[in-house]
């Protein structure tokens, strides 16, 4: 293998699995260390800079970082990254002095934000410090988009939402709320310098089954119903409720129903439990509230009598793994169909992009799935002034993706307004490596491995939580628990950096490494090398760090897979050929470079 080029920003970035997995590339270990130091305000600001909504995401994020956490590969549960984010938000002090200043004198460019959800808000935040004038349009009476309308208050309290939305609105957004956009053409006629469309995926899917029309009054589309509850238009639901669907919206619907008066709630899912779209913890919390989840039951028919819904007939199927594709296929079990009584159905079987207000003859192309045709890097549509982000770009994702899109769109808009090329002039990624050595046996980070198991987060008393939709279920870690959980972080951003010229090949690092990551051996092809290491390196997703050839003709090979970043290799190295260096990955973002 060729010697590893550690100057490539992506090499060590990949080692920080959580940051690599995060769409917005939040520097997770950095803020976790700050939490351990009780520097919550700084920890919050690191989050705010990269993911924009720390308090909201600390409660609602889909957490792509957690399954990626190295701790999973050392045979444990991941660090509770999401809950630690919330610790930073819950305990922070005054962030005012850290916020960017917005110039009084504007730069003369006017940008329209269509929608006031997370994507639009994040773009606005990135652009405002550069003197852009931002007009934000939304049909709802308040900002926040789906964060306000679709996430129930028992998961995301209104004050947390409002605080983080207001930080951005208070930077000087011209809010045009309660404004129903009916024509993109009209918007373009208003002659803004650029447009950002962040209108989400607002259309919930429906099911056209026998009886659907007849029982229309008793079926609600999940996201619309949640929104109606959020804005106080709906305050109760009665009788037996069936929630159809297996995603997070379904979980929010069933738990909300339980709180606003349903006699009974059952979730019925077409597919198997393991493949349900809902996050693991959302499923757990629903079940913890004694809501049954019935799987492998596709609906067949809505049963009604005199225009009143009586129940639903479901087919019984079982999943079979297709050998060739590896996918699950559902085959009838042969059991008789199941009839379930109900008075109301909440339909939460997915949602889709829907922009009926964008005329199809204005140079803005859509693909066959009715998604806008976009450049994946610049997020520019086929209309040069129009950019998309969040769910409206590539279909429903989650809030953290909206933040990630927003940073890219903001860079694009900035380049466009400066007359620069959106691709050629895009700022590159970079990486800095900074030694963490403080003294003979002192490192600037807490190198010692903490074997503690993942800490359990306290919950509100169940009866109280179920009695009031506004009572937040998860109470979050307090300072002490937050510290303990933070100590579980392996500091994967403090890298083992090897300098060939200093190595005397004494084997001290090989002997001390608790995870058998390091090998000195003759070089070879990657597949061959992976078999010859001290411990098998069969996780091909994790790189091998290969040195230049050493005086004995061998190379140092380090398998990054299960390295604990404990620093013992550097500690036991007599010549400091190993050093622990913090890798700071620079993800281009407006405001972090002089564009």
């Amino acid at each position, binding site marked *: 293998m060729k010697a590893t080029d550690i100057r490539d920003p992506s090499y060590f970035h990949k080692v920080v699995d959580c940051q690599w997995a995060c769409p917005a590339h939040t520097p997770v270990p950095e803020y976790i260390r700050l939490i351990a130091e009780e520097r919550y305000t700084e920890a919050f600001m690191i989050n705010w800079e990269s993911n924009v909504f720390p308090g909201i995401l600390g409660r609602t994020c889909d957490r792509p970082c957690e399954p990626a956490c190295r701790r999973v590969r050392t045979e444990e549960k991941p660090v509770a990254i999401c809950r630690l984010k919330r610790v930073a938000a819950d305990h922070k002090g005054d962030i005012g002095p850290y916020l960017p200043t917005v110039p009084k004198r504007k730069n003369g460019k006017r940008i329209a934000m269509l929608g006031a959800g997370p994507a639009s808000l994040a773009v606005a935040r990135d652009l405002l410090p550069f003197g852009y004038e931002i007009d934000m349009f939304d049909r709802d009476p308040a900002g926040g988009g789906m964060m306000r309308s679709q996430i129930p208050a028992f998961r995301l309290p209104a004050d947390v939402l409002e605080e983080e939305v207001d930080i951005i609105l208070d930077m000087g957004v011209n809010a045009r709320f309660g404004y129903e956009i009916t024509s993109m053409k009209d918007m373009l006629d208003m002659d803004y310098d650029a447009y950002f469309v962040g209108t989400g995926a607002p259309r919930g899917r429906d099911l056209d089954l026998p009886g659907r029309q007849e029982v229309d009054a008793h079926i609600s589309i999940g996201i619309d119903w949640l929104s109606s509850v959020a804005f106080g238009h709906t305050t109760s639901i009665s009788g037996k409720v069936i929630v159809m669907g297996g995603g997070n919206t379904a979980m929010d619907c069933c738990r909300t129903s339980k709180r606003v008066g349903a006699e009974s709630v059952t979730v019925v899912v077409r597919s198997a439990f393991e493949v349900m779209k809902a996050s693991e913890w959302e499923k757990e919390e629903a079940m913890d509230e004694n809501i049954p989840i019935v799987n492998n039951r596709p609906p067949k028919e809505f049963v009604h009598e005199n225009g009143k819904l009586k129940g639903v007939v479901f087919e019984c199927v079982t999943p079979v793994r297709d050998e060739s594709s590896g996918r699950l296929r559902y085959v009838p079990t042969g059991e008789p169909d199941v009839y379930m009584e109900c008075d109301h159905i909440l339909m939460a079987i997915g949602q889709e992009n829907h922009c009926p207000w964008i005329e199809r003859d204005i140079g803005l192309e859509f693909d066959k799935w009715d998604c806008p045709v976009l450049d994946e890097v610049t997020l520019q549509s086929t209309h040069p002034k129009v950019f998309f982000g969040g769910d409206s770009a590539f279909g429903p994702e989650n809030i953290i993706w909206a933040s990630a899109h927003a940073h890219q769109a903001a860079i694009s808009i900035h380049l466009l307004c400066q007359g620069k090329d959106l691709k050629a002039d895009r700022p590159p990624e970079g990486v800095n490596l900074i030694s963490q050595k403080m003294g003979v*046996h002192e490192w600037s980070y807490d190198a010692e491995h903490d074997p503690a198991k993942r800490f359990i987060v306290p919950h509100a008393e169940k009866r109280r939580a179920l009695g009031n939709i506004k009572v937040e279920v998860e109470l979050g870690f307090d300072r002490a628990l937050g510290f303990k959980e933070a100590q579980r972080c392996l500091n994967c951003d403090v890298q083992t950096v090897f300098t060939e010229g200093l190595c005397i090949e004494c*084997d001290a690092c090989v002997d001390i490494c*608790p995870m058998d990551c390091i090998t000195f051996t003759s070089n070879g092809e990657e597949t061959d090398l992976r078999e010859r290491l001290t*411990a098998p390196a069969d996780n091909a997703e994790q790189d091998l760090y290969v040195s230049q050839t050493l005086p004995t003709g061998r190379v140092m090979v380090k398998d990054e897979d299960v390295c*604990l970043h*404990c620093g*013992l290799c550097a500690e036991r190295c*007599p010549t400091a050929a190993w050093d622990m260096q913090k890798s700071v990955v620079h993800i281009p973002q407006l405001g972090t470079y002089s564009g």
Partner: protein
Amino acid sequence: MTFVAKPRVHHPLLPTNEIGLTRRDYEGLVSTLCAGCGHDSVSAAIVQACAELAIPPHLFAKVSGIGCSSKTPSYFLGNSHGFNSVHGRMPSVATGANLANRELYCIGVSGDGDSASIGIGQFAHIVRRRINMLYIVDNNGTYGLTKGQFSATNDKGSTSKKGVPNLYEPIDLVSMALQIGASFVARSFSGDKTQLVPLIKAGLLHRGFAFIDVISPCVAFNNHNGSTKSYDYLRTRGASVVTADFIAAGEEITADYAPGEVETVHMPDGSQLRLRKLDTSYDPHNRAHALEHVLEAQQEGEVVTGLLYVDPDASDCHEILDTVETPLNALGEEELCPGSDALERINASFR
């Protein structure tokens, strides 16, 4: 020295041996020696060898004298019996331990100061008494613990860290062991575990006195250009004459050997040692020949390594003295103390 303890967590695929233990179960405390010390690699080799032999850790007795080398038994086999004895007196303690309980695997670790200076008398006598043990000398040619004076194994002309040459002739423990009757004599290098680990395994299973002189560089005081015991010197001037591949009892033999290249030595427990001669004229069963080769190489400034001499049929101290088969701690009070009548009979036999 390190303040951070080695975490207990290990690689998820770390293999277990026949008795369900991993290599990590054979480790000891974290080393307090200087970072990069060759002795730590020797300890790691002992850990690996013992784990691969799948001997329960409590069946080992580890003994040592005084010095950097003699600290190392703390750093391997944490769950075994140990005795850190007096300077140069490890052989006495080892002799006692082995005579008292012949079922324990006895590992003695000593250094060039402990064995070639203050303890040279004890060393010579434990060799000739053929105590059934593995005697390892961590040989770095310097008194590291007292800041780098020349030791008795330091080669004449080799320099100190400051450049002062050594004026005296060295003691070569390998030559001594060969001369006085050790039945297993090897030399190795701490930086070459592929050679050292099979030697340790073979030495542990060898019945009789097994001696391994391990050149183990002192990174603090004797790892410079003028040294003949540095990492660089061993890597350029070390010459392996016979490598020993260890094949456990019942293990399938997978390696391909050219005919005539390999000689099999059968060990007491049914395992085999496959000796591969890299120098075809070398005879590892001829004591005089081995001694001659070692001395010749020494004149050339080369360090001969590998299994230099082995006599698989040698006797050990228990056989020489015709001792009781049962370890003393397993004998009853009547057998250990047969009474004054028995003493009378013994005394009468000498009259």
